[in-house]
């Protein structure tokens, strides 16, 4: 029983509950209609194509606003404020949600994040050799991809579509390649999102990328932690507001940090910067999902801390490190 009294165990319970809500929630808590969804601007990949879901991701309204509203500034001479109003509401809602839970939307609530972690657990139990951490070089190469996706697939391409420079297929290009669209709809028994479109080259390319990416993510998740999260455009969007988040990772390091790399090894996103020396500093990185594994696996008293506003809600300790390492060995055995 003691094995289940860990932060990770608590996180799994929250993730499972969130998964059920975001994939099937419309059947109990909200309704089928978009207007009745919980926030309609969730900073996590809860897909709008899943009509049984309890909420939908902020990236879909953002792409639509770029395509249909912001573009009218250029095409119809619309005044800036009315044209941007929808986008401002979306951004304000996201900022409000980030204020409450910061990047924990990824590590604790995202259905696609939980799905990938579940696949990794299956891979571990199947005895597949797990790739512990990616090299600094690989991580550094991968990191800009999510910014590229955010800027081009979420903002620029939809805007150019609305202006008329690109075909309609580029109106919501991120949704067209997002693995959450395929995963969440498939989870409700709807396989209609698995397809290759032959409507034109744009549709063909996007549908092909979507399917290849989904298959790749499935296989990679068997032995790499969080493969899609590393390129997810939700992270850049959250990063814009992470400074205001009440929940944060605070480091109060000591001399041991230079030689110990337990936190980096524990981090599913391979954020090597968290090893750096810091004194009472908010070290919530752009890639951080606030999963809390670095706090669990830090062997030094009071070095890594989870803080909510002025309150410390979890702090690292030698004792909890020993317990957590033991559980980890038991799980991987």
């Amino acid at each position, binding site marked *: 029983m003691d094995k289940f009294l860990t932060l990770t165990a608590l996180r799994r319970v929250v993730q499972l509950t969130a998964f059920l809500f975001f994939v099937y929630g419309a059947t109990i808590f909200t309704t089928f209609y978009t207007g009745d969804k919980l926030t309609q601007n969730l900073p996590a990949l809860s897909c709008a194509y899943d009509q049984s879901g309890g909420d939908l991701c902020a990236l879909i309204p953002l792409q639509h606003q770029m395509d*249909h509203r912001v573009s009218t500034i250029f095409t119809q001479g619309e005044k800036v404020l009315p044209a941007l109003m929808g986008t401002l509401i979306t951004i304000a809602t996201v900022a409000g949600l980030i204020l409450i839970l910061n990047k924990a939307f990824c590590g604790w609530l995202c259905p696609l994040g939980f799905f990938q972690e579940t696949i990794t657990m299956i891979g571990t139990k199947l005895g597949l050799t797990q790739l512990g951490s990616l090299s600094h070089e690989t991580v550094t190469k991968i990191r800009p991809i999510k910014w590229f996706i955010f800027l081009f697939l979420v903002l620029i391409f939809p805007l150019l579509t609305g202006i008329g420079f690109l075909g309609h297929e580029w109106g919501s290009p991120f949704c067209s390649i997002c693995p959450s669209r395929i995963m969440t709809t498939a989870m409700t028994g709807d396989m209609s999102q698995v*397809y290759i479109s032959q409507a034109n080259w744009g549709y063909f390319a996007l549908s092909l990328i979507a399917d290849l990416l989904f298959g790749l993510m499935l296989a990679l998740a068997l032995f790499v932690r969080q493969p899609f999260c590393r390129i997810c455009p939700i992270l850049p969007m959250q990063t814009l507001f992470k400074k205001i988040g009440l929940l944060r990772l605070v480091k109060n390091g000591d001399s041991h940090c230079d030689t110990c790399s337990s936190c980096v090894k524990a981090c599913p996103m391979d954020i090597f910067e968290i090893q750096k020396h810091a004194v009472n500093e908010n070290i919530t990185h752009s890639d951080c999902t606030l999963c809390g594994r670095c706090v669990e696996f830090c062997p030094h008293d009071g070095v890594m801390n989870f803080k909510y506003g002025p309150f410390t809600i979890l702090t690292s300790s030698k004792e909890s490190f020993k317990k957590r390492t033991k559980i980890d060995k038991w799980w991987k055995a």
Partner: protein
Amino acid sequence: MNKTILTLLVAATLWGYGDGKMYWAPHGCDEGKVTASKHGGHGMGENTSLHAMNLEGNSSVTLITPDLSTENLTLINNTLILPKASIGGYYALVLNHRSDNQVDSAIRYVSQQGRPSKVSPTKLTALPKTDLEIVPDPLHREHDRYTASKSYRFLLHFQGKPLANTPVTLETRNTPTQTYTTDSTGAFSITLPNDFKNVQVGKRENKPSEFLLIAQHNDTNLLYKSSLTMPYSLNPNDFWQSQTYGAGAIFIGFLGGLFLYRRTKIQGVKRG
């Protein structure tokens, strides 16, 4: 001669659909509809000019707005042009006609753009509008449309209560009439037929078709008839989208991932 043949062909095509029944149909839809649906295709191209088919004599028309307020409208030559919408969401258009021994009603839901309504569409569909009523459970979702080859559930209500074991007919332009029977809770499900002709590649290149649901019920020497009409679009998965190729691409992606796994494992062994 050519005109006569053309007229006969058109008549033969339309023969049977909604024959003798009161229902709503988009008015002069063809060109305008295609143009409207070319941009966006998220329910923005819904026709706001509608014709009350097979209507004889005086009838009352009520528009129920997304915030559930009602407005009485007037038909001109059995045609109605919806007023400009200020609130976005679903509007219910209700047509009632009463004679000595018969009560006819027709309902259509129209999706309009505007500032969001704070009332759930579930309240609009649940609101009793006519004595005999076919209630979508639910309506197609915002930014979406009824789609061919998909199944949808409806309820049949009489004076606000479920009507069990009652036949309901489904009519479309190109498929023979199908009859469904409500279950003990008044519910029935239909699958919209894939009956589009002259299909062009691309969703926005094909205008929506119409489906018509008709129910009737006798009570206290009165015959109640009710119809529900809505547009439905073709399903790209029936035409230019291949699900088999999609599954194949996922499999190739999966194999690519396994290849990376194998390569990583070999490199790991080499590194010692």
